[in-house]
């Protein structure tokens, strides 16, 4: 099996609204940034894969509009996942591993400002027993947070601390939407307060993958993907132990995360309480740098946030600030689906 690496990453500045831009207009600058960084033209890209959601856009086949931004004529090899772009990256990784392509462009975008994202996300729930009750994303996360508190795994001050640390770290991230001191606020849904919840916003991200020597040509220090795996929990929340994430642990094990220590972890935890679950599932101790970017609490462009975790981890490796990093992406309520990637940089010459 050949080696595949992330060789370029770009993201937009994440903002509460971007009414003056269509999705493709928001996306194009990041596409151009990753192409410029690698010197590639759209025509050089072997495979293109994207992640987005029609429910965010409120429009069927909305991803086809974004295809204008990648130069889809003459026809290209292209695919789309109605999921976070991290899963698009997984598909592209497989495509490169099989030798079907040598380079891939992966992008994802979300304009949460168009609708009510808390309501929109109810439409991904079991349509028979759950969705008719319209339980919004914050409420479901709050059930998980209370379960953690009851289990003695955390408390409200500890959650506030995690949220404050994320926003403090985000001051070093020029793209972050929420940074610095953020008031804890009132309970949105008890026990989660405003500060425990992610900002609602618009944004996009893009990544370029390349295989073998091609990666070395395109980047001084590629972030090699040593393993990647994704797993899912049973769909019914009442069947699961909400304080644990066996799917994250299994994905991490299959991705090789436990073989050697990682120095950095970019965790896709939109709620402060979910970081607690993920740290436990991944056995991350205080010596691991968690979410130096500020994580999803600093910017949460739904459908791109997971891809950004992988991109942030890779960028840290490319800059020489990390040698072995774990990136995690999630989808669905209460960490329903989880993807783990392990990235490494080669020793400096």
């Amino acid at each position: 099996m050949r080696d595949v690496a992330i060789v370029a990453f770009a993201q937009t500045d994440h903002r509460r609204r971007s009414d003056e831009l269509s999705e493709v207009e928001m996306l194009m600058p990041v596409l151009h940034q990753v192409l410029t960084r690698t010197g590639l033209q759209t025509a050089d890209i072997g495979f293109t894969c994207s992640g987005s959601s029609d429910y965010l856009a409120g429009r069927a086949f909305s991803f086809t509009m974004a295809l204008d931004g990648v130069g889809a004529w003459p026809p290209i090899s292209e695919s789309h996942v109605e999921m976070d772009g991290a899963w698009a990256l997984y598909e592209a990784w497989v495509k490169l591993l099989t030798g079907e392509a040598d380079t891939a462009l992966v992008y994802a975008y979300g304009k949460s400002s168009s609708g009510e994202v808390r309501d929109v996300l109810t439409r991904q729930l079991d349509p028979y027993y759950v969705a008719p009750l319209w339980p919004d994303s914050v409420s479901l996360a709050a059930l998980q947070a209370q379960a953690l508190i009851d289990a003695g795994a955390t408390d409200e001050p500890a959650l506030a601390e995690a949220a404050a640390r994320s926003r403090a770290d985000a001051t070093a991230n020029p793209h972050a939407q929420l940074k610095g001191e953020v008031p804890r606020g009132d309970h949105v849904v008890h026990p989660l307060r405003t500060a425990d919840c992610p900002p609602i916003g618009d944004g996009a991200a893009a990544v370029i993958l390349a295989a073998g020597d091609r990666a070395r040509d395109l980047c001084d220090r590629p972030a090699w993907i040593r393993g990647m795996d994704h797993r899912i929990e049973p769909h019914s929340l009442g069947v699961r132990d909400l304080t644990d994430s066996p799917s994250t642990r299994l994905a991490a094990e299959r991705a090789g995360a436990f073989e050697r220590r990682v120095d950095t972890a970019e965790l896709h935890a939109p709620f402060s309480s979910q970081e607690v679950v993920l740290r436990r599932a991944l056995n991350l101790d205080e010596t691991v740098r968690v979410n130096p970017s500020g994580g999803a609490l600093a910017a949460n462009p739904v459908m791109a946030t997971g891809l950004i975790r992988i991109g942030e981890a890779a960028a840290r490796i490319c800059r020489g600030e990390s040698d072995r990093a774990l990136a995690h992406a999630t989808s669905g309520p209460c960490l329903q689906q989880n993807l783990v990637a392990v990235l490494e940089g080669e020793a400096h010459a």
Partner: protein
Amino acid sequence: MPEVLRAPLVVEFPFTRSLGPVQSAFLTGLRERTVLGVRTGDGNVLVPPVEYDPATAEELRDLVEVAATGTVTTWAWNPQPRRGQPLATPFAWVLVRLDGADTALLHALDAPGPEAVRTGMRVRVRWAAERSGAITDIACFEAYAGESSAPASPHSGTFADPVTGIVAPARLDYTYSPGRATSAYLEALAERRIVGERCPSCHKVYVPPRGACPTCGVATTDQVEAGPRGTVTTFCIVNIKAKNLDIEVPYVYAHIALDGADLALHARIGGIPYDQVRMGLRVEPVWTEGARHPDHYRPTGEPDAGYDTYKELL
């Protein structure tokens, strides 16, 4: 920059879903104030019941009846109920393990405030006054002083007049903003002008513009006027009357290459019998009073355009 255009966009659909045997028994049971679960191969009782074991994927059909009373396993106080949620006043979301069950059901708990709710509290079902065979037949849960009752008992799952499907209405509200390029196009249309954008790389003019050249993958920036006249490149004859559309059938829907554009747009052709529309026909837009876009295109009376002039735009 001109003001950003905005319009409300409502996406609404009554999803009609058929039920499997277990879901049908469960939802029919709710209509009859009976809560059913399903027993797995290793003896666990799942409520709400599913048709396949989440652990083994084994088919499950062994229905049991559980109590309408149970214990809260986790909760979350919702101070501001949202549209569609079970209660309009502040309430707690709860996962409830009903007596006799091994898993928990998500629903709402009616309580005076968060201090009245705790994990481990005893609750019972409050049934909806009118029940149709849906999860909302449970209006909510309410506090209940009694202890845990009897274990699950076997149930045939058979009821008179079983529910075999549900209609799940879904409505989402958006505020649509079309972005820079489309906004400029719509603003020009309001002045009865048609503007496209030219690709700085391949110089093609796109009408309507979407802000990017699909061939080059770069932003289109130069605004150019196109039309108003154009050429029919291809067309079809519509014989089915659309709902809410006040147009007599048959009518013609056509691709029209506006003069100066490198991409055909589509519109209805009027002012000519449907069977006389042809490729190469020269047309112009017809604006109706107060409309923000052309109602249709009609013949200009010019001689037909030669095939070579529009063959690249087919």
